[in-house]
């Protein structure tokens, strides 16, 4: 449940940034203005696709996986849990790469990007903790 709520908040953060890139909202609520520097930099696209759009698609996928994991027929499935860990882990690695770019290449911090990195890290942690449930269930049989 926590993963689904976190993923939903990630969808909104990335949708907000993508709407900015599309020019649908004026300026970003970002204090000292680091967000616009980051969002208008050449690193705001990855292999030709807006990073915000990649984030939007990624969080949507995490939301679907989180909700799928709550369905009775998949709630005991390791497959869905594994996919959630893999997807959020990939998202976390991507967020670390983007944070590196902000700190050491662009030299500007976008607080919305930081929020997104925290969200994807939280989804990953929740997914890993949930996965331990299967290990605990398997433990009595293994003894």
């Amino acid at each position, binding site marked *: 449940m926590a993963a689904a709520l976190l993923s*939903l908040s990630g969808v*909104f953060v990335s949708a907000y940034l993508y709407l900015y890139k599309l020019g649908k909202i004026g300026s970003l609520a970002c204090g*000292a203005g680091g967000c616009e520097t980051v969002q208008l930099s050449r690193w705001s696209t990855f292999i030709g696709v807006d990073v915000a759009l990649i984030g939007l698609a990624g969080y949507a996928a995490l939301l679907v996986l989180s909700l799928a994991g709550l369905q009775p027929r998949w709630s005991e499935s390791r497959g869905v849990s594994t996919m959630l860990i893999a997807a959020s882990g990939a998202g976390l690695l991507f967020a670390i790469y983007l944070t590196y770019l902000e700190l050491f290449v662009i030299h500007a911090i976008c607080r919305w990007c930081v929020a997104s990195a925290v969200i994807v890290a939280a989804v990953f942690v929740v997914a890993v903790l949930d996965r331990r449930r299967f290990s605990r269930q398997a433990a009595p049989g293994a003894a």
Partner: protein
Amino acid sequence: MRNFYLVLGAAAIVGAGILVYMVRRPAEVGIPANVVVTPADTAGFAGYVIGSPSAPVEVMEYSDYQCPFCQGFALIQFPTVKERLIDGGQVRWRYRDFPLEQHPAARTAAHSTACADDQGRYWEQHHAVFEGQAEWSEARNAAKEFRSYAERLGLDMKAYDDCMQSAKYAGRIQASVESGVRLGVNSTPTFFVNGRPATAAAVSYDRLKALVDSLSAPTAP
């Protein structure tokens, strides 16, 4: 589980509602800093100039609308300099934008004066923006304050709004910053008198007058 879906659904509706509100609200003006400067940005433009083309002395000022020292100079020293030296034909003044990174509204301020320049009212808007610095520096939406100054000057507000929304002078402002960086400008205000750097302290009216007199004096045979 039903309660969870209710919470998730409510969060989705609230989030979507906030995004829709943001898309529909009137856009705030934002002038980007990291634009790519094109030749068109600087074609035929090297700052805002006031004074006689044949004046023997040219003072070039790099300034930031959100800088308190620049405001002090603009409101206290510059009127006297203008009245006695510029209007007297001894000095030509060239103002160049140098919005500092730590001043988030300075670039929008500079763009506002550029849009006023489109309507031939650059110096009036320049003065109004400096005069209102205390108001807009702390304002949530500085562009709204600049707009009110433009309105007070009687500018064509449709043209002004279009100009601000387009951010068409963002490249020109950035070109001005880059020209200053090339000359070694790292603070504001920075002055150059006939191309030579002069300390800000040297550009009080009295000191500038002495400098102008020395530069204007006929050389001994």
